[in-house]
């Protein structure tokens, strides 16, 4: 008998919810440090609602996904496969990676693109226990003066920004809130 007890619904209204989530992610990415809220959904544990919304909005069968740490479990894999069809790959071949910060590091494992094709890089979806507009100082495109975001560390992001135009983009998720740190943002200590 097939019993997918872990199989949860995705967006309740896929077209509208995905469009709103995409808009929220785009605003977060365009203005690094701002915290956006995505529509409520209930992905399987341990995924946060925001991480679930980001996955269902951005992933499809053509985006290899790397699950790290606690996120790499059967319920999550079944849910992602059912709703997006995204294939699961190692860190070196992924275009999206999902997990807590400790499980995602070191960042050298992920593709950063090439100088000719900087878009061939990975986007990290970082599950954080806390997301608040204080802590590390962010400067760069999309930020008028400076912005603050509670980052798990700063050295890795400084190194990431130094690789520009290559590099990784990060999306931070916590509960139903989402913030982003593109590779263009310069990170300074708190």
């Amino acid at each position, binding site marked *: 008998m*097939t*019993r997918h007890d872990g199989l*949860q619904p*995705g967006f309740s209204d*896929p077209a509208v919810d995905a469009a709103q989530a995409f808009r929220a992610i785009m605003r977060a990415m365009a203005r690094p440090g701002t915290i956006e809220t995505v529509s409520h959904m209930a992905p399987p544990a341990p995924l946060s609602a925001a991480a679930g919304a980001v996955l269902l909005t951005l992933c499809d069968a053509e985006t290899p996904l790397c699950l790290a740490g606690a996120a790499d479990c059967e319920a999550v894999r079944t849910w992602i496969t059912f709703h997006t069809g995204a294939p699961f790959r190692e860190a070196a071949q992924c275009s999206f990676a999902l997990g807590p910060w400790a499980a995602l590091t070191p960042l050298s494992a992920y593709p950063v693109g090439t100088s000719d094709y900087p878009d061939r890089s990975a986007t990290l979806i970082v599950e954080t226990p806390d997301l608040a507009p204080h802590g590390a100082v962010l400067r760069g495109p999309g930020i008028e003066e400076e912005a603050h975001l509670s980052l798990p560390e700063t050295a890795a992001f400084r190194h990431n920004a130094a690789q520009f135009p290559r590099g990784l983009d990060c999306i931070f998720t916590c509960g139903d809130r989402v913030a982003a740190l593109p590779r263009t943002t310069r990170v300074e200590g708190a």
Partner: protein
Amino acid sequence: MKDTPDFDADRRAWMGLIACAPAGRVAALLDGATARPAFVWLRAPEFGSAMVQGRTGASGAPFNLGEMTVTRCALRLTGGEVGHAYLQGRRRADAEAAALVDALMQTGAAGDLRAHILDSLAAEAEARRETRAGKAAATKVDFFTMMRGEA
């Protein structure tokens, strides 16, 4: 998935029967047999198109025959059973009934449903096939050549 081959074949058979039933028939049989159980949508009914492939002589190289409209949905009963439905055309209500039958066939109600729904559908499908075969047989022409010369 982790299904045993036996269950797979069985499920394929009933999903095929349901998919080939005329519009509204599965819903009518389902409502006649049992009350609809509570469920949540995993994927609400949605329309799409699927490329149908054929093989010359059923065994040659595959070729694209054409696209067909498909309605699909998936739901989960409160007991955890997941039902899927893929039907031809744009038929939301039929897809819901088909997915419900698929899910209920995995519960204790399977025997009851088989008697009330699947056996009826199988008999109707067989009757349709025989009617069509009968019509075709009526137009059959036997060609033969008269013997020439001495008998």
